[in-house]
């Protein structure tokens, strides 16, 4: 049981961590200072959540595990995030598109987790749900601005959505661990999340004058540890210090 709870916490934490990492790459390079600050804020919120999940995961796992060994010292196949969050910062449209699609899933996820039978998960969700609500508001507004802005921004935003939308289905594919956590009322019910998420996406894209792509879902197995080629490079940054200088205090 403990091992499954640990794996479930990794799924929760890794999505926040890899998305937070992608956003952190942009710090200092935003289209203006206001958006730079806002994206960094979201990254900070996500890393705050990561710390809570991984501190708890370390407790669950016991022994020598810490939030940092969990974050930085796993092998690539042990990361449990979905492929959506590792997609690169192609342009601001892709950054906003990735954020919006994830937020539309993240908010209903956290709303459900506030009711989790696991008190720690419920407490983390309780704190994070407010952040996710703000993230979704921010990203939806930007999807609308870019979708219904200039011709160029419309085209770029549509292109970003075309690329990213096929990745969202992975979020709703239930793994064995998620199924078990749902049955124990620790984890969330993905079918309910999917409903709310698809409604949000439909409404916001319509408002933004953007089309929902008809493309088929991408094959994605991130939750079981099979990722795209992007992950190796993300990890070579993320893990650099811990790998180059092992077993030290920082």
């Amino acid at each position, binding site marked *: 049981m403990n091992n499954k709870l640990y794996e479930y916490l990794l799924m929760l934490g890794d999505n926040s961590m890899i998305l937070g*990492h992608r956003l952190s*790459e942009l710090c200092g390079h935003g*289209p*203006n200072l206001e*958006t730079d600050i806002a994206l960094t804020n979201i990254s900070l919120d996500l890393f705050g959540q990561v710390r809570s999940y991984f501190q708890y995961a370390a407790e669950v796992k016991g022994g020598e595990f810490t939030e940092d060994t969990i974050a930085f010292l796993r092998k690539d196949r042990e990361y449990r995030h979905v492929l959506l969050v590792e997609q690169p910062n192609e342009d*601001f449209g892709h950054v906003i598109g990735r954020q919006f699609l994830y937020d539309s899933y993240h908010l209903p996820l956290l709303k459900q987790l506030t009711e989790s039978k696991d008190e720690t998960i419920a407490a983390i969700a309780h704190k994070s749900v407010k952040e996710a609500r703000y993230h979704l508001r921010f990203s939806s507004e930007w999807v609308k601005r870019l979708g219904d802005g200039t011709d*160029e921004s419309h085209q770029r935003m549509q292109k970003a959505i075309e690329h990213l939308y096929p990745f969202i289905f992975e979020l709703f594919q239930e793994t064995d661990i998620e199924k078990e956590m749902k049955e124990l009322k620790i984890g969330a019910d993905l079918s309910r999340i999917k409903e709310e998420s698809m409604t949000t996406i439909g409404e916001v894209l319509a408002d933004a004058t953007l089309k929902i792509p008809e493309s088929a879902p991408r094959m994605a197995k991130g939750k079981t540890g099979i990722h795209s080629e992007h992950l190796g490079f993300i990890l070579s940054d993320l893990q650099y210090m811990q790998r180059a200088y092992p077993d030290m205090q920082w």
Partner: protein
Amino acid sequence: MDIKSLEERFNERIDAGESIEAKDWMPEKYRKTHIRQISQHAHSEVVGMLPEGNWITRTPTLRRKVALLAKVQDEAGHGLYLYSAAETLGITRDEMMEQLNSGKAKYSSIFNYPTLSWADIGAIGWLVDGAAIINQVMLTRTSFGPYARAMVRICKEESFHQRQGYEIMLTLANGTPEQKEMAQDALNRWWWPSLMMFGPRDEDSPNTAQSVRWKIKRKTNDELRQQFVDNTVPQADYIGLTIPDQDLKWNEEKGHYDFGPIDWDEFWQVVNGNGICNKERLKARNDAWDNGEWVRDAAIAHAEKRQNNKVVKKSA
């Protein structure tokens, strides 16, 4: 009132220690000097995000990552207040960005040095922010009100950053030999450029007299530099790192540290655009600005559409 009496009145106000506000009469040169100085300061905050941003994706721990992200974000915030303060003097943020991106405006040369190891993040917080604070504490009492007030808030955050940087250095200095070596190497590389942050020697700094007259500067470059050395040497001693200056020695008579000669050739080389990262810093700023143009245009276009929709709805 004619210009001459306006100027006399202005000088009296400066002498009386009154604060000059954006809408008050001021000599054109005072206005221009402030636009230049405040925008340079804002540019330094914004360009200063780059060398530290370089390590955000590679911090050794999650705690350090959150702290560094928050720090670099604070610098963006400082850039914002300062650009706003400069805007009160009749220049737009876009104009200032244009001056930065074209290379016309300067920013603090220290940010043209590379961050080569994690210890550089500690060294920048400790030394570069430490040097900046000395300057900025003085500026909280500068004669131009909006600038002075922006400085009060900035100083609080900067002193937090400085403690954070020093704490990184302390941790490294108390760590493994490899970590201590990393910290010492960072101190060796950042020490002299930090001393150069205060600008040329007083005898080579023609602007100082006018700036002192207008209470833009209340201390000279050399006085501020001395203060920095006096503050920092004991801090290095405390964590067991060595300041890379063989001439450094406590002078009992003066009550200050004596220190060795600064390599002003290096200073001017970097100021004139030939430091290790000058080109890269400017390119990063230009890329961010150019790649963001369609985003800024879209935001304006969207706001206009909304405004028009409101008007249409109202008149319907």
